[in-house]
């Protein structure tokens, strides 16, 4: 998919921002919608959102960069999240994480060179009674042992 040019981004973002601006506290819904539409929050989107909401560009950047969810760069075609919180630790999540990092050859938040997958830590998916847990593009997976992780890795690299 070719990266849309700045004019196209601007038009798309302006439409999203204008539609959501009447909400009470519209900035997070706008950032979520932009990310859903573009796959990330492109730098070109920030001045447009600032303009529509009558904020400074720094304020919009400040909000966008505060939250772990919003990405300034596109992610891989799939996003694999592995829970690193305590309940999963108690069931061996550290070993699962180490295996995933090694298999994909990336660090946390890293994307494989072929752009197939981005690996991210997550702190709790609420699957603490069937730990360790993972999520692949919004699909949840419980009791992730070596075999299940390997299957997930095969799936994201396929």
């Amino acid at each position, binding site marked *: 998919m070719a990266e849309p040019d700045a004019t196209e981004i601007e038009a798309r973002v302006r439409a999203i921002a204008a539609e959501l601006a009447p909400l009470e506290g*519209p900035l997070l819904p706008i950032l979520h919608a932009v990310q859903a539409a573009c796959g990330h929050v492109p730098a070109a989107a920030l001045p447009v959102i600032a303009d529509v909401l009558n904020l400074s560009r720094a304020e919009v950047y400040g909000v966008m960069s505060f939250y772990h969810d919003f990405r300034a760069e596109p992610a891989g075609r799939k996003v694999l999240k592995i829970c690193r919180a305590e309940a999963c630790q108690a069931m061996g999540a550290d070993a699962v994480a180490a295996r995933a990092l090694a298999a994909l050859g990336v660090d946390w938040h890293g994307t494989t060179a072929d752009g197939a997958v981005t690996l991210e830590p997550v702190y*709790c998916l609420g699957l603490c009674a069937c730990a360790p847990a993972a999520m692949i593009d919004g699909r*949840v997976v419980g009791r992730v042992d070596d075999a299940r992780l390997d299957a997930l890795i095969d799936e994201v690299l396929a």
Partner: protein
Amino acid sequence: MTLRIYVPGDAAARALGADEVAQAVRAEAARRGVTVTLIRNGTRGMVWLEPLVEVETAAGRTAFGPVRAADVPALFDAGFGDHALALGPVEDIPFFARQTRLTFARCGLTDPLSLEDYRAHGGLDGLRAALPMAPGEIVQTVTESGLRGRGGAGFPTGLKWKTVSEAEGPRKYIICNADEGDSGTFADRMLMEGDPFALIEGMVIAGLAVGATRGYVYLRSEYPDAIRVMHAAVDIARRAGILGAHVLGTGPAFDMEIRVGAGAYVCGEETSLLNSLEGKRGVVRAKPPLPAHQGFLGRPTVVNNVISLASVPVILARGAQHYAGFGLGRSRGTIPVQIAGNVKHGGLFEAGFGMTLGALVDDIAGGTATGRPVKAVQVGGPLGAYFPREKFDTPFGYEEFDGAGGLIGHAGIVVFDDQADMLKQARFAMEFCAIESCGKCTPCRIGAVRGVETVDRIAAGDTAAIGLLTELCDTMRDGSLCALGGFTPYPVMSALTHFPEDFTAPRKEAAE
């Protein structure tokens, strides 16, 4: 004859293959020409048995679990009767039979998005009881029930509502804190996915009580299933007139929206949640002013946890005394304990306050999944203390846990076996605080980073740094603006106090 089969649509069940089981049920029914009504219910909370399939029989619902898709043909062969996975009547399973289900009475029983089911099982009784009451009477009922904030702070819900009801403002808000970020907790998720109308009903009642006309659920982005179900439930409730210009056709206006968080743990703290909802950085606000006086957009605001709000309908329906009749000391009613981590029987166990930690861990949870001895139990999420076996006689209650040097928080318990390295857990507590700190106050922002470094010094054999870590924890506890920096010392100091050998013994890594 139509078979009624229930396969949970809850995220934990789906994480264990419930979608595949549901698909297999449909395929097998079609292959055999059997008419099946398949209902994707919430979970009963017995997660170790998920996917837990239930079938309606003349004698009630009987359960099978854990079911894999490959087991489905054999279940049909057995006529959903005698089979190796048969568990008998679902509500007779000891883990379930021992509970007192008030807040979670419908969870797992009903189709989460069927209003008909909801009404048939006591739904809207609370709201109907509240509608003719004066706002002050509703507040009084909630006060008398003894309900306290289930998010962790344990602040009396009735008192919070009274403050908002007496505050002046052009508009008031009911905000549901569904930013359930604590590891080991999933009660909010389970309720929202399994009985979303209960939360909506609780928010409407709160609106009537304090004169609020608008509500928001601030729901964490890590819960895509809960987000989907809550959106659908709000739409259904609006179409049915439970929400809108006149609640249930005759009441005042109340409407609500679902807002999705963006992956910041600190937004579970109520003032940073308000900032986030307003579209700002999720930075903590200094109190006062209280959110009850100046909350969302500077207006009077109730901020309550999912479970607090979802417990309100049953309190109104059955009366304050019924709810207050359960519990221990100043902790009234029931608490949904979430049993997680290294346990044989993980899941949600709702019961009156008062059962001991030991009974929960050894008896109800059945010990560890690995079969090894329990070393420590973290109660109350990443800001909760690690309890050693010597403290297992602590009864579940706000004051009782405080007295034992801990907190119940959102009532998640995470069990660790004897393989756990408590220095590593202490380091993680500091690391997590450093990652999630909003940055506003120094003890949290800088302290957590220095905390990681200090634990690393101890790990490298510098035992003199133990005193430094203790002092740092004192500073964080006394000087932080909110519970993130203020409570991170709980896991760190409890690990250090109860498991000193993990901090002083020569370490493998250091020797290598």
